[in-house]
């Protein structure tokens, strides 16, 4: 499983496989060159008293090694940066692209926050792990082997001491890393609890103030905060003892080498230079172990993220859309009829939201859907736009089952405005053009004039070039709604869907928009969902939905005459 993921990740590096080999070679040459330096430094110290220019020759070798090591390391780091960031960039793009290919039913299940954190944070974690691995793994391994080799060559007894200590070093760094990891995990759990509490409090600030529960909330916070302080202390402490422990083990090895080395030296068994080489090796002996254990921790994080990301990338996608060849007719002039035939649908299996819904919207008719909250009005729209597929039954647009119309062509016919006032991060004009990219500035402005948004847009500092940011509230909810209406208007579709489109604009504005909408609906097929019955009265046809079933169907006057559900609804509205 793990290997499979790694191999899959390697395909992201695929294009630069040559870099991967270069990286390996550079890691090798860096480790070899830098590990050879202490050996030659020792030889240099021994040749102090030697005749001739032996010392100078050795020093020149060292300088050569320094240059090789320095340049290799520099190139290694650069090469690894390129490799890692390019690969992760592609992975990130794939993750984002995947969103547009997933069925809505999947996206409903996952929270937006976790999807976003996967696309951004998890891929970062993968990058961190891979980068550290590439930077440290080869050179770390080579350093350990090289050090042991040189030591064995210089003095096998001393090398033996080091060899005995090696497992100790391993165990120490493993234990500490493990302990730190566990308490870090606990810390991050409590941290996320604390963070979500704080973000809830800041988001619900007004509520807390109004309800006078600030003392209670402060008390709850105090408990969480204290808890966090304790775990944070522990985690920070545990992670910070790894350095001193390493230094301690190193110091012991060092003392051991000095002891054996000095005794051997006193007996003439080893030169001072060789001893100083050994000491130099000993003083940095633990470093590669530390590096490797850091690689291990980072990589296990990285691997966990990798399996999560790949699992997500393997999610079942929407079926390949049919080719958009047959639908080339001019969409704005076509009058299109819509028909629902026996449509049943459920978001959760066994809990149908729509039951055998059938109705027909004539070409060019305006059609209203009425019913209490939660009766399935918006679901009808979701099905019509193929955000979801019905469990059974059929939906026909222009006499053709929408299953046979590519989603993109189908959506080309349709302009919609929903309750949700989402806007694209971009300028006002970008947003108006959202459904019609080729619109000229003048045409976009005309659309804005028609919906009455022009007047507030002109008051914005940068007018049509004002940047809209969803997190900033300089533009009111009502103005945002106006922009979404303008957006649909500018798209000039043959089917217009208005789902509570005017719920957050004031009455005066609504009347003005209504006029514009009426004008736009003229000659087009329109589906309207609204709470305000006044908006609905003028529609050609009204369907009354309750608990997912069609209760009544007819024009306003017919339905009033029927004396049924609708007339009761109307009565409760007017009295």
């Amino acid at each position: 499983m793990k290997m499979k993921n790694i191999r899959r990740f390697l395909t992201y590096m695929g294009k630069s496989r040559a870099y991967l080999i270069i990286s390996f070679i550079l890691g090798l040459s860096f480790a070899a060159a830098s590990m050879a330096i202490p050996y030659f430094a020792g030889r240099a110290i021994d040749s102090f008293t030697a005749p001739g220019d032996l010392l100078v020759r050795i020093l020149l070798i060292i300088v050569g090694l320094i240059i090789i090591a320095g340049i290799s390391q520099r190139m290694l780091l650069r090469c690894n940066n390129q490799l890692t960031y390019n690969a992760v960039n592609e992975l990130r793009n794939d993750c984002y692209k995947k969103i547009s290919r997933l069925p809505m039913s999947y996206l409903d299940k996952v929270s937006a926050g976790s999807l976003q954190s996967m696309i951004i944070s998890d891929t970062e974690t993968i990058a961190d792990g891979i980068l550290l691995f590439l930077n440290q793994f080869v050179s770390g391994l080579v350093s350990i082997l090289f050090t042991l080799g040189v030591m064995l060559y210089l003095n096998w007894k001393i090398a033996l001491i080091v060899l005995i200590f090696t497992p100790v070093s391993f165990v120490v760094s493993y234990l500490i890393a493990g302990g730190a990891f566990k308490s870090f995990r606990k810390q991050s759990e409590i941290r996320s609890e604390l963070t979500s509490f704080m973000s809830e409090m800041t988001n619900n600030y007004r509520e807390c103030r109004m309800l006078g529960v600030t003392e209670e909330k402060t008390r709850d916070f105090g408990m969480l905060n204290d808890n966090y302080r304790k775990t944070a202390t522990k985690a920070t402490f545990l992670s910070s003892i790894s350095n001193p422990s390493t230094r301690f083990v190193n110091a012991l090895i060092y003392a051991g080498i000095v002891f054996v080395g000095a005794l051997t030296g006193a007996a003439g068994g080893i030169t001072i230079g060789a001893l100083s080489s050994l000491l130099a090796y000993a003083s940095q002996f633990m470093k590669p172990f530390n590096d490797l254990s850091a690689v291990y921790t980072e990589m296990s994080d990285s691997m966990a993220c990798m399996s999560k990301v790949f699992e997500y990338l393997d999610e079942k996608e929407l079926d390949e859309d049919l080719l958009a060849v047959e639908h080339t007719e001019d969409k704005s002039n076509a009058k299109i009829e819509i028909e629902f035939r026996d449509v049943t649908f459920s978001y959760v299996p066994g809990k149908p939201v729509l039951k055998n819904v059938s109705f027909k919207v004539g070409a060019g008719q305006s059609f209203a859907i009425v019913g209490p909250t939660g009766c399935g009005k918006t679901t009808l729209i979701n099905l019509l736009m193929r955000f979801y597929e019905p469990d059974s039954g059929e939906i026909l647009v222009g006499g053709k089952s929408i299953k046979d119309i590519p989603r993109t062509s189908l959506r080309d016919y349709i302009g919609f405005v929903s309750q949700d006032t989402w806007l694209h991060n971009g300028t006002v004009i970008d947003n108006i053009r959202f459904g019609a990219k080729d619109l000229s500035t003048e045409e976009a402005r005309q659309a804005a004039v028609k919906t009455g948004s022009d007047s507030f847009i002109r008051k914005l500092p940068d007018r049509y070039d004002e940047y809209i940011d969803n997190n900033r509230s300089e533009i009111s909810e009502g103005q945002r709604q106006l922009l979404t209406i303008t957006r649909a208007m500018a798209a000039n579709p043959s089917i217009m869907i208005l789902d509570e489109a005017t719920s957050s604009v004031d009455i005066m504005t609504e009347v003005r928009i209504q006029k514009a909408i009426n004008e736009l609906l003229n000659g087009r097929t329109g589906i309207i969902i609204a709470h305000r019955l006044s908006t609905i009265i003028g529609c050609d046809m009204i369907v009354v939905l309750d608990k997912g079933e069609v209760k009544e169907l007819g024009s306003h006057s017919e339905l009033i005459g029927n004396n049924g559900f609708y007339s009761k609804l109307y009565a409760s509205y007017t009295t």
Partner: protein
Amino acid sequence: MKSLIGYFRNYRLQSILSPVFKLLEACFELAVPLIVAGIIDKGITGSDTEYIKSHIWLLVLFAVVGFASAICAQYFAAYSASGVSSDIRRALFDKLFRLKVSQYEKIGSSQLITSLTSDVNQISSGINLFLRLLLRSPFIVAGACIMAFTIDWRLALIFVLTVAVLSVFVAFNMRSAIPAYHKTRQGLDDLVDSCENGISGIKVIRGFNRSSDDMESFKAKSGLLCKAQKTASDISAWLNPVTYMLINLAICLLIYRGSIHVNAGTLTQGETVALYNYMSQILVELIKLANLIVTVSRAVACASRVEKILAIPEDGKEQKKVEFAAGSSHSVEFRNVHFTYSGNSEESLTDISFKIEPGEKIGITGRTGSGKSTIASLLTGMYCPDSGEVLIDGIDIEDIPDKDKTSGIGMALQKTRMFSGTIKDNITAGRTELSSDAIDRAAYLSCSDEIISGKTEGLDYKVSAEGSGLSGGQKQRIGIARTLVSKPGLIVLDDSTSALDSGTEKRLLDRLDSLEGDPTIVLISQKIRTLKSCDRIMLVDDGRIVAFAGHDELLESSEEYRSLCLLQGEDAS
């Protein structure tokens, strides 16, 4: 920066002990090369095995003592870093609820959440590293140079030169690395924004067939981030190789010069080895010092942001001692109230004066932006008027203690925020004194009982902070229940029935009429239908009261009101 230092007071001892122990550890480390030099010169060259044996114990002892002091130092550093930062976080959180609502909104919740989380965390790691390395790193670098001087002043000059060159290089490298990391940060923020926007707008993007364009724009931002990351890492990738090369070249020089002195008899071989060791120690510490500077400077930036929030002046106005009885019904009076939102040039409310008697039911209507909600916010004491007075039962609302104000006045908003927890938790919002009878009653009055009975878990149905699983209208009803449950004497519903269908809304309004104690009710809505049954209706436009009378009277007297009714299909009948 200065005011935050006060937060060390509870951790004074730990904050002093930590660097002291670190210093101790450094001293023991610095002594090691000298002992080894002695062993080489006296023990090996002089073949004195007794000397070797006695001095080895010194090495082991130093290692043990050094390790012990390091552990103490790390513990104290971790303790005071998390302690100080937790205290700062708590102070910040306490501060939030002492701010005026307008001050709070000016800072914005996203800034506050950043301060509470990442700023405080950065401060914590800054303190931690600072305490640990403050004395150690400079001490070892300086100490190694000084030790070199005690061995041989001419060779020590190589040390001084190396340290100088290295410092300059590290400083320059950092100076270009910091802005590059800044750019990475910016790139990441942009990408997060773009991702968030794309995910939340998925239906619109699909509906308008813009998926591939959206993908392109994400790809562009992602590419920018990738480029920034490569640049930043590339700059840092100079640090290790260059310092490594410089130190090793210095070692070569040291050995070369050392050999001359050894041959001249002014230096021993052991001392050369000691100098070599000191040089290696410098490298490690200098890089640590560079990291320390980066972390600490980041922490200082975060600290100043936190400090700015903590330094916001709290209520300047001295609260008078007033007796305010949170009763069953309150009167309200506005006297010449003016109000301007901060940052706006135009007044949002101009010279508003009116009076509401206890037990009255008042409607406020007007177009978006006319000032309806601003009146509500002033009415409940969320905002304070720039001039003029808002009186509750004849008492200036700013003089009423917070506790009394919140129990006397209840308000529900159009966009109801949820607390993560059960429906019950959302109705009580943490007020433990509420009886279950009161909760059931509030649920009934707000028509939330229908929601609750529709869930198998009933009141224990779990709601997330985003309120998933509940429709907008359901959230509004729970918000109203939350307001009613404490039985306030003044109830303000700011467009909080807007998402209800007309049947439910009518039921809710009927139930409100049956509230015990006959509380004063202020309903804000754009819908005449919602307000029709009110005793009086206030028509607001452009921050002024246009008319204020009963429905029938307004129909007679106000042209604007009449046209509003007509537009909504409310005939004059």
